[in-house]
């Protein structure tokens, strides 16, 4: 490949690709590739070749960067710790070096890059320089971050929904077990809803809780205590025989909690607490 940026000569216009020399074809590829910054470095790490994708990614034109050290692309912390030349050494020793890390553009902004170094040797096996291919992964990293956050939000919402089922009654249908993180979410969302809506009764339904271990039971008690502190009553529903047994065996104190085996019985109880009852319509 030639030094610097050199577009394939114009007088080959109209010639089919397959008629070009293989070195011309490689040149065409390097010049046209859009996602990969392809750069050649000499033994000291100075830039001796630069493609259009490199200019787009890092911001330097060929004139600006040729002859400069490749450390220009690294962060200040990396330069201080000697990372750039360490990577060249590893390339020479291992025959290849790949890394994902922050790099710096000409204007100082950072981007997340996948970088692959290749040692370039002549026919005699002597090291003559390095090839460096860089890919910008910032978009992908941001997208991954976004997806991860959305997934977490969805998970949070679907596993700890707080529903207002009646004026003054909120319902939390719990699914699964309660670890510390979920309990935190549960407490925050439930208390927020209770105080926002001024609901004097919170129904916590544990039909969807398969087994109640000590941790879940303690977290449940904590949650109930917090709800009572803000001034609301708790009706615990969906207490199945196996759960009733476990709670008694664990010696869990549910003295101030109204409990019912079914959600419907619990809702009736909630209405009673509010001084309401369900009656048939008169004909």
């Amino acid at each position, binding site marked *: 490949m030639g030094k610097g940026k050199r577009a394939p000569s114009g007088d080959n216009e109209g010639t089919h690709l397959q008629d070009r020399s293989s070195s011309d074809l490689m040149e065409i590829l390097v010049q046209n590739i859009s996602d990969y910054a392809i750069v050649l470095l000499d033994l000291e790490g100075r830039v001796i070749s630069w493609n259009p994708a490199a200019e787009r990614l890092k911001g330097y034109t060929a004139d600006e960067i040729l002859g400069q050290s490749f450390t220009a692309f690294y962060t200040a912390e990396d330069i201080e710790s000697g990372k750039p030349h360490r990577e060249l050494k590893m390339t020479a020793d291992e025959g290849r070096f790949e890394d994902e890390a922050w790099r710096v553009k000409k204007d100082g902004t950072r981007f997340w890059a996948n970088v692959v170094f290749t040692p370039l040797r002549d026919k005699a096996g002597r090291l003559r320089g390095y090839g460096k291919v860089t890919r910008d992964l910032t978009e992908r990293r941001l997208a991954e971050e976004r997806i991860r956050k959305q997934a977490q939000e969805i998970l949070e919402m679907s596993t700890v929904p707080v529903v207002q089922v009646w004026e003054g009654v909120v319902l939390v249908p719990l699914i699964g077990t309660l670890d510390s993180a979920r309990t935190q979410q549960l*407490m*925050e969302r439930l*208390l927020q809803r*209770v105080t926002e809506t*001024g609901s004097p009764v919170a129904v916590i339904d544990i039909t969807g809780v398969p087994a109640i271990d000590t941790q879940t039971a303690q977290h449940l008690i904590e949650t109930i205590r917090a709800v009572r*502190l803000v001034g*609301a009553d708790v009706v615990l529903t969906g207490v199945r025989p196996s759960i009733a047994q476990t709670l008694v065996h664990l010696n869990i104190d549910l003295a101030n909690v109204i409990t019912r085996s079914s959600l419907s019985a619990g809702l009736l109880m909630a209405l009673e607490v509010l001084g309401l009852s369900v009656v048939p319509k008169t004909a």
Partner: protein
Amino acid sequence: MPSNITVVKVRGVLMVTMPADPDDSTIGELQDKALESMEQHGASALVLDITAVDTVDSFFARTISETAQMVGLMGGRTVVAGMQPAVAITATQLGLTFRLVETALSVDRALDIVSEKGERGRAP
């Protein structure tokens, strides 16, 4: 010394509004003033409005519990109204207890509880 605590009598009930971020002396003053007023008015209940309070510690919880006990000995109920969610969570996680104290979502409901409107009192 400027006072942070004012006790007001509303419909036979004593009411105190706690300022945001009360220091220890203010909390101590609460106990003194509450008991003084109980003696003076012979009220049936003390309503403590903590809507503005955004942090509580063990001293706060202990003093409130003690005050409730003392007010109880003088013949009154104590209702704590308007605890913020974050405060309730912290209190629970720190294992703070508020003994002999009933709780209410708001001062309005607290007054309902202690009056003859008969909403059942709620012990935490």
